[in-house]
């Protein structure tokens, strides 16, 4: 879209006006001026959230880091013993870790490339004025109401090769050994995520799509742009920030996904779906090697943080500006 210089100036002027008013108010109250301080809550306001985060995220993370240098089998009366870098050297030579990282990244990529497009398409459609749209959308949102554990159990039965969907549709599923081969087991997990998580993103995209001023579409129509052209030239650019937000949500969510894999495949077949969180669980709570499990947990945190940081940088999320500036 070409920005209209005049309206940009207008909105810029309106903003300055607002700032001026605000500043005036603050000065009257005898507090320091400037936009930085304009009616914004101080650190005190953030304290509950910070405390919560420190207690339930940073503190356990710190302990996990500490435990990764110890041997600990979970029995309190034989406390963790310091073993230096043993867990870390073991980690670096453990082929299962590399395999697990690969599967985790594969699953993240597959989740993004399936969930974002479907979310955009359904969200934009759901933002429209069609008849019966509300009913269809309501039905579509049902997976959001169900717990993932219940969903996993349900799909476990639905995918049973002898009694489930594969048995009814042999032309599509062959012998139905979906969870017995790595590629099909991964496909099944990606599909269930798609089915279960996309409605949330649809909701977000629906809200975002409704924010796009209808006047832009009207202008485009006058210029002779068809529906497809409008979608790619107006809708997608206007949803850019939402797409970035949703992508980060999906990435972080998939990195820590665990429950479907625990219930549906238990990391199988032959550890073909053993993503990092599951691998961590197996080491810490099946083998009761909490030190090694903690080392894997730290790797997971670092990996997820690194990917999120890169995404934030590459997409310009940290410098995000309004997509409707100038409209």
């Amino acid at each position, binding site marked *: 879209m070409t920005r209209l210089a005049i309206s940009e100036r207008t909105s810029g002027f309106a903003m300055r006006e607002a700032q001026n008013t605000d500043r005036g108010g603050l000065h009257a109250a005898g507090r320091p001026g400037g936009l930085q301080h304009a009616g914004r809550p101080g650190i005190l306001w953030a304290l509950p959230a910070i405390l919560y985060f420190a207690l*339930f995220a940073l*503190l*356990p993370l*710190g*302990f*996990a880091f*500490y*435990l990764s240098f110890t041997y*600990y*089998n*979970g*029995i*309190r*009366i*034989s*406390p963790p013993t310091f073993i230096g870098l043993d867990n870390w050297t073991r980690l670096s030579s453990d082929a299962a870790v590399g395999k697990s990282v690969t599967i985790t990244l594969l699953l993240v990529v597959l989740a993004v490339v399936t969930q974002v497009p479907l979310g955009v398409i359904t969200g934009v459609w759901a933002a429209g004025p069609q008849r019966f749209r509300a009913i269809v959308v309501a039905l579509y949102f049902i997976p*959001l109401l*169900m717990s*993932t*554990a219940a969903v996993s*159990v349900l799909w476990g*039965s639905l*995918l*049973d*090769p*002898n*009694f489930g969907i594969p048995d009814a549709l042999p032309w599509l599923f062959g*012998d139905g*050994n*979906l*969870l*017995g081969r790595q590629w099909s087991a991964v496909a099944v997990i990606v599909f269930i995520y798609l089915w*279960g998580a996309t409605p*949330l993103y649809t909701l977000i995209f629906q809200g975002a799509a409704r924010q796009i001023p209808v006047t832009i579409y009207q202008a485009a129509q006058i210029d002779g742009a068809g529906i497809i052209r409008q979608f790619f030239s107006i809708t997608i650019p206007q949803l850019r920030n939402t797409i970035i937000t949703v992508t980060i949500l999906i990435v*972080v*969510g*998939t990195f*820590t*996904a*665990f*429950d*479907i894999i625990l219930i549906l495949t*238990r990391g*199988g*077949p*032959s*550890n073909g779906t053993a993503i990092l*969180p599951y691998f*961590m*669980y*197996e080491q*810490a*709570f*099946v*083998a*009761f*090697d*909490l030190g090694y499990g*903690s080392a894997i*947990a730290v790797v997971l945190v670092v990996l997820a943080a690194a990917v999120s940081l890169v995404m934030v940088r590459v997409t310009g999320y940290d410098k995000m500006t309004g997509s409707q500036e100038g409209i």
Partner: protein
Amino acid sequence: MNLKKHSARTAAAAAIAITAFAVAGCASASGGTNESRPEGEIHVAVYGDAAATAEEAAAERFNETSEIKVVVDKLAGDGNYPTAVRTSLGTANAPDIFMSWGAADIQQLVDAGAVMPLDEFIDEDPALRDAFIPSVFDEEVINGEAYGIPMRGVAPTFLFYNKQVLADAGLEPAQTWDDLLSQTETLTQAGVIPVALAGADKWPTQMWYQYAFAREIGNDEVSAGLAGEGEVWASEGSRSALDRLKELVDAGTFGSTFDSVGYSNQGTTGLLSQGKAAYELMGTWNYATLEGAAPDFVADNLGWVAFPSLEDGAGESGEIAGNLSNFYNVAADTRYPEAARDFLKELYSDAFVADQIALGNLPPTLNAGEFIAADESIDANKKSYLDFVFNLVQDAPTFQLSWDQVVPTASKERLTDAIADYFNGTIDADGWVSQMQSITATG
């Protein structure tokens, strides 16, 4: 709400938090005094599945006469039970009495001094040992000291079959390994999966190895191999057992989709009870599972038979494998050891034995046979079933505990992985042998 992300994160955070608080709490709990434990009561952590009712009833009977009361803490009857017990030991919230699966399961607890040796109790009341089947009782005797009292059903594995399916195919229950192989063809042609196998759960696959090896090399050799004699796994008999298993897999004995079939979601239960499969190799508890899912099938068409023999194998035909029993252990820092001892006596009481039988379990007590014969509250079908299991155990020259209960906890997952991987072709016999050697070497 994106539940997948949220709950997974919460679980991960909780897991780490538990660990963190466990560590943080060490300082305060390390005094080891039991004064901080609840006064006037002992806590029993009951594994909360269908069989828990017998233990709850035992607690009620105990409380009628005892001044120190037993409090039943019913924990979820799933894989989290050992974690819950383990992380609470040494705290004021720890159970006084809890359940375990065998020596390997409690080895780390014994090493840490968290469980109490029961020899003094046994000296005071020898029935705590003598009332039980010796081979079962001895499982939790570690370095000459007894740590656990058997309490749940003895659970060997054997073949369950669908009478109707076999009759329709004109077959008799397999008596020999060759029968199994030849019936595979007949049953496959009849459109039936010869053997239902819940490969997705991995541990059911392990049962086939246990019998292939028991028949080929005998349980004594298996036991030596699990204890660390690596050459057992590389031996000719071991190779032959692996070849036989592969032969069954390749012949289609388990169908082609066994890795997608589960036991916990009743995948195999459906196959057997609805006539889509002829056999299933499973433990004693399968009767109750089948009865819950398909009572009519159990009454009319469920058959059971000992695992087929192998003529040229080195093992004896009566050797069996499975789970010996579960055991109750006592926390080392219990405040009321006498009350704990007295509660353990309930485990060989007539009422407890009768309750176990009513549940369809074979009690691990020597008098179980008489009780089954005398019990009039159970139906004839269940009676003949329990009779069969009792005799199977009585006549067995050896009873090998499930392999994954023998190897150290840390190696359990690797063992079941190796077992599943050889079945689905991810690793070959050489790969399996070296895996087993490496897993058992640490034991």
